[in-house]
């Protein structure tokens, strides 16, 4: 079963995709790599980042080193997070 989540884009990702936020349909259970594939398929411009972005769900970083299971429910917020440069 799928669900609707809000996806938000920042910095270089926002410039490439052309918007701050959008709606995204995702399966309620999928792996991290499958999730990235869905994003890259819907937002091809992100390919320019050459996979140099990670993801956060409801403001918690998703583990990007393993290929962990990600579980979504409707209304979740998914953030596309390019390499950071604060401080």
């Amino acid at each position, binding site marked *: 079963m799928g669900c609707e989540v809000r996806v*938000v884009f*920042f*910095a*270089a990702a*926002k410039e490439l995709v052309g918007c701050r936020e959008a709606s995204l349909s995702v399966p309620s259970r999928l792996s991290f790599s499958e999730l990235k594939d869905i994003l890259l398929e819907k937002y091809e411009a992100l390919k320019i980042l050459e996979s*140099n*972005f*990670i993801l*956060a769900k409801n*403001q918690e970083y998703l583990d*990007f080193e393993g290929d962990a299971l990600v579980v979504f429910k409707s209304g979740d917020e998914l*953030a596309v*997070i*390019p*390499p*950071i*440069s*604060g*401080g």
Partner: protein
Amino acid sequence: MNHILITEQRLNIPDMYNKVRDPSCGAISSFVGTTRDLFNDKPVVKLEYEAYIGMAEKALGDICKQLRSQWPLHHILMAHRLGSVPVGEESVAIFVSSVHRAESLAAVSAAIDALKASVPIWKKELYSDGSSNWKVNAECAWK
């Protein structure tokens, strides 16, 4: 107390110092980052900061929790400016007060390291030749 501040306003450094002072503390240590006029000899005309604000505030709070688990600290203030920051102005400020100096000195250094590694804030430099560049921290684990 933890003071977390993410703002487009100019950072008020004296005010931040005053927020962490306390008669029970003998030490106030700080780190302030300002925007530089050069990047590898290229003159910088403007810097812009963007943040995932809700998550950044949460991440700064997590850093405070981590600091307090390592050292006995009194007040911690972590502030970051967003939007356009003119060259020479403050982009980040960390103030920590403690009874003795060792803990606040150590905590300030650990705090800025952790901020650069984990807080979702981005900096874009605009150069005098019209080019621009989204910077990437060496501390960032995904780059």
